[in-house]
């Protein structure tokens, strides 16, 4: 079964399967459904760490040194636990600066140095080639052993075969083709290989499955479990399986652990998978435990396998091949084939990823910078894409051939484990530059250069050369006696340092010179400005927001694009331009913004490396001499500072534009509290002096006025330990608030724990605030016109950095801005309050008692201030009532005052009881005269233009007389539900002059509802007044409603959302004084008639239950009738009204008006009216169309029905 062709066929099929997986993943990625955007896939892809070494070499190592191999897996577990501290930084830096390889990272960190990048690339290639050759050796050996089944051979028996018959060569060429297919088919700015990562994750499962299968087989099939296996091993005295002591030195154990900690990051393939191919840094969280778990699973059977191999095969097979030879010895062909596929899988994955990573380094950091030197004509070549791809492919083939050559020359007879360690030690040389560069800003290019060269040289001398010597390439005396016999220079006992194993020895020396050189040279020199700038970008990656230094250079968009096209191809360049997040360029001729240039450079840097990208971009933006460049960097430094200031200004601008959107003090304070969270502080509290909230002038700081009202609290959480809104805080003299009030300056308390003063306000609360996490405070005053309105406190709890001096001035600035808005709001509050109070005082508080109509009213001031609407209900004698509605032009205090005057005037005129048209005439006259005076005084605020409606309703006759001066006509809702707008002659607004006013007379059925209103109710800016009137009509239509209900219904239907004018609404439902409450008599002009009337009146009063008033009423009537007979003319009528009062009226047709006289003692006449005025509560005269009425009212204790 295990014929050569079968093995080859299955191998090729397996590689085809891997490629198929990769191809599928690429297709998925193109469709936007990435497979690798998954934490588990990420964790599994990290298992590229497990190479063919894991499969074969570990068991070999365990057979001789027992558990000693395990450090290689414990180290990564520890390093990944540090991942959140270390790896996350590297991932974020690489993403932001588009660094696609380890050499790019080092180069970019130390001022984008091309020399450093090249050096790192060389060291990586030299250091890793032995490791690659190890994989080639493992695969080809396994193949050779397997195809000789059932014979079990050892690698040493395979001997040296001619080149063309060597399986290794063909494996190498096959893998080179495979790698190119995987990783260098096309160029991608991000240097991501989705397919490759997916394939690696897949093959990780295959190799795990293979090793677990053979482990279970050996442990539980060939032996009866762990106990049996180890008992036999103990009996056979294989102590190396049980202890380290005597087999592995503790020193090399520790070094192995440390080296593997570094390798899990610094091996080029690990860098590629962990950093470059990482899609989301949160995936690290799963990788941190899932990958160690994977390692645990894949190593769990290593020691049992070694024990099984030693027991079953012993020396008949090489321990490095036990995994393969154990199943073979048991005749398990399928299992052996599975192990072979697992080994092939592990080796292929390692070689593919490693060579892709190395080829990226070689092309980006070594070849491209050389080709792109300013002198080179290449920088101006039309299409560099093919060239870059060519370089990559050549590098892949060369690296693999180099690995093969090493394998041919030095690989024979070497134990697999030793190979890997040499590579681990080589890449560990990068650790000081990279890890130091992450946390220490002081490292310089020269420091890295010296450290790296020295460390690398030491590695080569103490580790690489001895491995050559052991392979027989150098004479053994080189190791034993030192070069040229100089004992002090013996590679494994350098300078006489003995007693250490080779690894500890090599690591001690290389770490010493590497770290020493890096730190020492860095400290002696100074970082250049470029290095400093990059150092800040790298070390502060987690705190600094995105945005690199700007380059102060100019180029057109078209020129930049053509550079990108040369490297990325037309499509790639367009993609790169499209991915620019800012506003896209208008045309190719447009000047590129520094941002765009930076973006383009970053895109390019993904493909050709940071240093090369800079060189390429320089060809179009103009390569500058080095000194100028330094100046530019310095400008960059300065512009960073400017940038910081600009950000603060932006913040201030945004914050202040959010404050003061209303004229409300509390809301303004809340806006201030909101504006600074979370951009500046985590919590903000605003405390104002109590008078400020009422609109009054505050008196803070003077004497005992140490009270502030907490007005606003805002923060990133709702549950806070601070004083809550509405609490009164009495601050102590030592508190920051008191010091702020005293000095008028903002106070900074950078560390609350170290400052006692602020706790004096309330020690318990202060403790709670500290427990809550608040650690830093700024208290800023809120000054306006030299007066302090209050203070604002900014707290930090979540943000770790305390406030600094810059923050202090920013806080003070923000507070000053806010204070102006607060003061505006305070003044508005005061003035608005005054105007409202004035108007309220001018409007009727409660309507006077009267029985003629049932009224309800509403007054709604306009939102923007008080207006000049007014209304009134005035009881008139004779069971009548006057209804008034008016509107003064304009808003504000002036309108309110004018309204007050007009209202008073109407009140006064009404006491003369003129008909409505006449009353309006008087009012007109008043307005005209007043305005003449006002205009003469130079004042322009006149009363002219005011409108007025005046209606008088008689509840006995149901007559209603209405006149209006420019006011909207009232609506009348009949008891039957119909609605009409009364046809009242319009008249002109007051003060215009011209036509006299006219009254309309109408008779209203009982229960009619007269609806009077101002234009604010029906007029809108956005709609015709007729629409409003129609709406009103609709609302009034229908069933009988009380005036209150009508008011509610009307406002609900017609109240606008934004009320720009004030609204007055008055609804009166008419009543009728019943026939039983009215009595009248005609009296002939004969004194004899008087007693008859008196008798009739007396009888009527008795009927009304008012017999007590009979005497006085008789007296009043006889006086009035006598007067009418003596001075008046025509028929005389007497009327009695029993309503709220008892009214006696005497009508005659004369127009002479009676007047009160004080009769002298001897006068015969003149006593009548005097007597009436004494007996009646009120009396008076009013004129009718055909004469006059003299009336007298007496109060009654019990009104009718009461």
């Amino acid at each position, binding site marked *: 079964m295990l014929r050569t062709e079968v093995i080859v066929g299955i191998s090729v099929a397996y590689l085809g399967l891997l490629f198929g997986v990769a191809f599928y993943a690429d297709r998925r990625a193109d469709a936007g459904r990435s497979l690798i955007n998954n934490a588990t896939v990420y964790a599994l892809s990290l298992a590229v760490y497990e190479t063919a070494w894991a499969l074969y070499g570990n068991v070999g190592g365990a057979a001789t040194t027992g558990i000693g191999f395990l450090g290689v897996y*414990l180290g990564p577990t520890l390093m990944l636990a*540090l*991942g959140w*501290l270390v790896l*996350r930084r590297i991932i974020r830096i690489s993403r932001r600066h588009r660094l696609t390889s380890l050499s790019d990272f080092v180069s970019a960190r130390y001022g984008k140095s091309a020399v450093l990048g090249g050096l790192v690339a060389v060291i990586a290639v030299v250091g890793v080639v032995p490791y690659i050759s190890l994989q080639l050796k493992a695969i080809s050996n396994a193949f050779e052993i397997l195809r000789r089944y059932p014979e079990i051979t050892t690698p040493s028996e395979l001997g040296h075969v001619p080149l063309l018959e060597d399986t290794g060569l063909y494996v190498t060429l096959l893998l080179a083709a495979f790698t190119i297919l995987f990783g260098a088919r096309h160029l991608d700015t991000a240097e991501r290989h989705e397919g490759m990562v997916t394939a690696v994750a897949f093959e990780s499962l295959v190799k795990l499955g293979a090793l677990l299968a053979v482990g279970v087989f050996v442990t539980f099939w060939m032996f009866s479990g762990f106990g049996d296996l180890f008992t036999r091993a103990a009996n056979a005295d294989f102590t190396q399986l049980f202890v380290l002591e005597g087999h592995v030195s503790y020193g090399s154990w520790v070094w192995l*652990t440390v080296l593997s900690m570094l390798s899990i990051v610094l091996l080029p393939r690990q860098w590629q998978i962990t950093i470059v191919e990482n899609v989301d840094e949160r995936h690290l969280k799963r990788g941190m435990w899932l990958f160690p*778990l994977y390692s645990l699973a894949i190593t769990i059977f290593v020691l049992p396998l070694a024990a099984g191999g030693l027991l079953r095969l012993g020396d008949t097979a090489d321990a490095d091949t036990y995994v393969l030879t154990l199943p073979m010895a048991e005749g398990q062909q399928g299992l052996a084939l599975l192990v072979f596929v697992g080994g092939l899988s592990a080796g292929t994955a390692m070689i593919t990823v490693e060579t892709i990573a190395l080829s990226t380094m070689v092309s980006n950091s070594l070849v491209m910078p050389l080709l792109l030197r300013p002198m080179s004509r290449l920088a101006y070549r039309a299409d560099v894409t093919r060239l870059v791809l060519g370089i990559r492919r050549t590098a892949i083939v060369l690296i693999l051939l180099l690995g093969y050559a090493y394998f041919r020359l030095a690989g024979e007879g070497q134990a697999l484990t030793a190979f890997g360690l040499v590579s681990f030690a080589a890449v560990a040389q990068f650790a000081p530059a990279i890890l130091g560069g992450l946390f220490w800003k002081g490292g310089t290019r020269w420091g890295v250069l010296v450290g790296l060269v020295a460390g690398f040289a030491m590695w080569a001398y103490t580790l690489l050369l001895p491995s050559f010597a052991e392979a027989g390439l150098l004479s053994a005396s080189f190791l034993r006696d030192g070069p040229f016999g100089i004992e002090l220079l013996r590679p494994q006992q350098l300078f006489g340092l003995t007693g250490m194993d080779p690894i500890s020895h090599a690591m001690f020396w290389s770490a010493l010179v590497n770290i020493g050189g890096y730190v020492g040279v860095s400290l002696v020199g100074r970082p250049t400005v470029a290095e400093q700038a990059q150092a800040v970008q790298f070390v502060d990656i987690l705190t600094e927001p995105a945005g690199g230094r700007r380059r102060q250079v100019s180029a057109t968009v078209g020129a930049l694009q053509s550079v990108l096209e040369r490297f990325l191809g037309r499509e790639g360049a367009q993609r790169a331009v499209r991915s620019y997040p800012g506003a896209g360029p208008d045309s190719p001729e447009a000047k590129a913004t520094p941002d765009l240039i930076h973006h383009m450079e970053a895109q390019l840097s993904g493909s050709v490396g940071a240093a090369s990208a800079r060189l390429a971009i320089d060809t179009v933006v103009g390569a500058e001499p080095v000194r100028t460049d330094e100046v530019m960097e310095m400008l960059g430094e300065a512009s960073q500072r400017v940038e910081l200031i600009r950000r603060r200004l932006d913040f201030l601008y945004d914050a202040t534009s959010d404050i003061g959107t209303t004229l409300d003090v509390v809301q303004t304070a809340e806006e201030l509290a909101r504006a600074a969270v979370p951009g500046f502080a985590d919590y903000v509290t605003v405390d104002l002096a109590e008078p400020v909230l009422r609109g009054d002038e505050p008196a803070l700081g003077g004497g005992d006025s140490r009270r502030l009202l907490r007005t606003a609290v805002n923060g990133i959480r709702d549950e806070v330990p601070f004083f809550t809104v509405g609490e009164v805080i009495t601050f102590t003299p030592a508190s920051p608030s008191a010091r702020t009030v005293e000095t008028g300056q903002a106070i900074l308390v950078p560390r609350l724990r170290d400052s006692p003063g602020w706790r004096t306000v309330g020690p318990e609360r202060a403790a709670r605030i500290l427990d809550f996490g608040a650690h830093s405070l700024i208290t800023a005053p809120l000054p306006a016109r030299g007066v302090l309105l209050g203070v604002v406190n900014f707290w930090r709890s979540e943000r*770790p950095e305390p406030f600094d001096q810059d923050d202090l001035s920013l806080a003070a600035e923000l507070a000053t801005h806010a204070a102006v808005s607060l003061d505006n709001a305070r003044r508005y509050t005061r003035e608005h309050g005054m105007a409202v109070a004035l108007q309220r005082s001018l409007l009727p508080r409660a309507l006077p008692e009267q029985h003629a109509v049932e009224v309800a009213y509403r007054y709604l001031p306009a939102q923007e201030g008080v207006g000049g609407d007014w209304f009134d209900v005035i009881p008139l004698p004779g069971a009548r009532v006057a209804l008034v509605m008016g509107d003064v032009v304009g808003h504000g205090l002036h309108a309110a005052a004018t309204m007050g005057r007009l209202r008073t005037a109407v009140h006064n005129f009404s006491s003369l009881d003129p008909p409505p048209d006449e009353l309006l005439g008087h009012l007109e006259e008043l307005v005209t005269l007043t305005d003449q005076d006002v205009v003469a005084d130079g004042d322009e605020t006149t009363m002219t233009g005011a409108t007025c409606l005046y209606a008088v309703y008689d509840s006995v006759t149901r007559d209603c007389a209405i006149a209006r001066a420019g006011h909207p006509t009232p609506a009348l809702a009949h008891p039957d539900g119909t609605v009409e707008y009364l046809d009242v002659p319009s008249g002109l607004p007051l003060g215009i002059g011209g036509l006299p006013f006219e009254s309309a007379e109408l008779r209203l059925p009982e229960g009619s509802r007269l609806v009077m209103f101002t234009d604010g109710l029906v007029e809108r800016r956005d709609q015709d007044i007729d629409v409003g009137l129609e709406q009103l009509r609709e609302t009034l239509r229908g069933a009988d409603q009380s005036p209150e209900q009508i008011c509610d219904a009307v406002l609900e239907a017609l109240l606008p959302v934004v009320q720009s004018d004030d609204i007055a609404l008055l609804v009166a439902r008419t009543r009728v004084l019943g026939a039983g409450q009215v009595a009248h008599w005609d009296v002939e002009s004969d004194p004899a008639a008087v007693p008859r009337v008196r008798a009739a009146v007396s009888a009527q009063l008795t009927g009304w239950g008012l017999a007590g008033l009979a005497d006085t009423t008789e007296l009043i009537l006889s006086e009035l009738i006598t007067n009418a007979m003596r001075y008046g003319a025509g028929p005389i009528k007497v009327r009695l009204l029993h309503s709220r009062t008892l009214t006696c009226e005497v009508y005659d047709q004369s127009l002479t008006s009676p007047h009160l006289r004080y009769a002298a003692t001897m006068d015969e006449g003149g006593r009548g009216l005097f007597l009436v005025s004494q007996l009646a509560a009120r009396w008076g005269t009013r004129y009718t169309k055909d004469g006059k009425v003299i009336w007298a009212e007496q109060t009654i204790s019990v009104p009718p029905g009461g």
Partner: protein
Amino acid sequence: MAESQDDGRLAGRLAALAALGFVLVIPPLLARFDRVDRVFGVPVLWAYLYLVWVVVIGLVAAVCARSR
């Protein structure tokens, strides 16, 4: 994007775990278990190292899960 307090805390806890793990797998603690004995039929050192390993992995997973 500034570093949040949660991330800083997570990094600190994990770093402490790494330090603990490192101390447990190197001498002198390691030497205490480095002897030719068996426990439950398997070598003491083997059992010890895998136990430490499992505990560290479990703790890392627990800390990561809690931070989410």
